């Protein structure tokens, strides 16, 4: 599995609540049989006009976000469908962190399996981070998983919670399926008892 330790990067601000996975990657792009190339279509219906030209008012077309690895999003990010194509598309574009006040359950699970770190902060911190980005489009945040902190200019340092198992898997790049297989004897015993 992809690892995550720490990074310092500029920020893509998306101050909208309840961004659903149909916006992150519309269903017409789900007819693929691999994971490649989805970054080209991330937020396609917001990013491009009907004629296919870039919509200049959408943040991903703002030159200041080029190369940014952190998405700063609104509440309940990733609600809706279970499509793992959503984190594949975000990672495909180059993102490695999403900061929000909450995540939809399935999206959070899918993100963790793709080295995309979901960081939950409270509403006041989220507003502070948005304000910093608005004041300076070039602002960078540092996200450190081992320390569980987000650091931003002005000596802002906030800690975030993550369960110890997910943290360990991301830091070490643990193959979760391999981990499940390490309990094969117990799984077999369970199956004998529950035919």
């Amino acid at each position, binding site marked *: 599995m992809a690892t995550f330790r720490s990074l310092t990067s500029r920020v893509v601000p998306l101050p*909208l609540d309840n961004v659903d996975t149909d916006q992150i990657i519309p269903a017409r792009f789900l*007819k693929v049989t691999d994971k490649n190339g989805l970054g080209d279509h991330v937020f396609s219906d917001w990013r491009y006009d009907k004629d296919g030209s870039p919509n200049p008012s959408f943040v991903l077309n703002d030159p200041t976000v080029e190369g940014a690895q952190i998405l700063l999003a609104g509440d309940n990010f990733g609600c809706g469908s279970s499509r793992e194509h959503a984190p594949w598309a975000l990672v495909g574009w180059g993102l490695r962190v999403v900061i929000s006040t909450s995540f*939809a359950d399935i999206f959070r699970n899918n993100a963790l399996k793709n080295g995309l770190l979901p960081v939950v902060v409270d509403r006041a911190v989220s507003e502070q981070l948005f304000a910093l980005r608005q004041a300076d489009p070039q602002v960078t945040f540092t996200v450190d998983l081992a320390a569980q902190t987000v650091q931003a200019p002005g000596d802002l340092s906030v800690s975030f919670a993550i369960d110890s198992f997910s943290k360990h898997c991301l830091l070490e790049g643990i193959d979760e399926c391999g981990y*499940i297989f390490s*309990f094969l004897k*117990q799984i077999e015993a369970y199956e004998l008892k529950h035919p």
Partner: protein
Amino acid sequence: MPQTLFEKVWNNHVVVQNRDQPAIFYIDLHLLHEVTSPQAFEGLRQRGRKVRRPERTLATMDHSISTLPRLLRVVDAQAETQLRRLEENCLEFGVTLYAMDSEHQGIVHVIGPELGRTQPGMTIVCGDSHTSTHGAFGALAFGIGTSEVEYVLASQCLLQTKPKTCEVRLEGVVPKGVTAKDIILALIATIGVGGGTGYVLEYTGAAVQALDMEGRMTLCNMSIEAGARAGMIAPDETTFAYLCGRPFAPKGAAWEAAVDRWKKLPTDPGSTYDRTVTLDVSQLEPMITYGTNPAMGIAIGAPVPAPEHFEDPLQRAAFEKALRYMDLPPARPLLGHKIDVVFLGSCTNSRLSDLRQAARLLRGKHIAPGLRMLVVPGSQAVKKQAELEGLHDVFVAAGAEWREPGCSMCIAMNGDELKSGEYAVSTSNRNFEGRQGAGGRTFLASPLTAAASALQGCVADPRSLLEGWT
């Protein structure tokens, strides 16, 4: 210690629970479809793994298939590749596939129950968020991503952290014209699209017991639209009567033993939930959504909210963005708003009772001139029974299109889609921007409201058409 339905099913499927680690959690039934499985099979191949329990795995085709007559079935080359890949994968790994020519083909959440594969007390997963549907039988059923599809194929297990529980008490008797779809839309409008995040919902109360299995499936189906991983309903005589005699339901002595086991599943008196929400359904009216998430819903005669209704600036911004997308004025009713399309289908509302209700309103009448109505049965079995009852003749005579089973315009991957700017009343589950086609605008509602709206060519209240209904 008294336990809830959820806790009983959870405890019964924990293989290993170590401290500070997620449980190794056993899955009884794994459902597959063409869209979220190819990368999982590819992962198995790369790691040299097999499908550990093919007999606990079942595949069908539903998302990217055409719903036109099967001879005209090519959507496009990419969709064809995806379908062919599912056939190859199921053949190579020994998984049963109900492909397009199978009498059992249909929307994955319609065929599991109707075949009797879905049973009380089971754990069921699928790479599809509406897996919550199967909770109507007292199963713990939830959607997973493709990585987890691979884990379950390989090991029959998942890593799971125990969710919290929320009791949703539905009290009272629903008024005429109010269906399970209206109940769930009202609940989501009350608790919000994130209101169930982190929870498994258990629906309890007289209004739940009064629902038939198809209504219970509609209720559980949209639990995910409130953010809940799963919705559950305790199995009872209605459940057993539905399952008895289904192709994969236990038979003879095994049936008796199963029913005895299932009767122990309901929540024990004195059990506690982390949270309880109560809704009096006797006050409900038919519901319809006006915005771009399923919580943006109102009673059918009510006005769309005004911006002042939202104090929180982010919520107000989302509301205003939604109305811009929907091109609707605030503070006006939706009733009478012209529509272009009516879609009757999806894993929420494509079962026989849904089709019967709509057909009863449409019988002997014609849909509004210029309006397009698609009726897409949930499965081959639903289609066959509907045709035996002559429902297809009612729909066709009314001017609707009678299609082959599939997800169709709920997800608009297969050519069944709205044109940009079109309005639809849809019995599906999501009104997200572009969900039914780029630029398309969706009003979610019940099959009754959909049929009434089709007749009038605009958003319509079905209740005036229900005279003489009991």
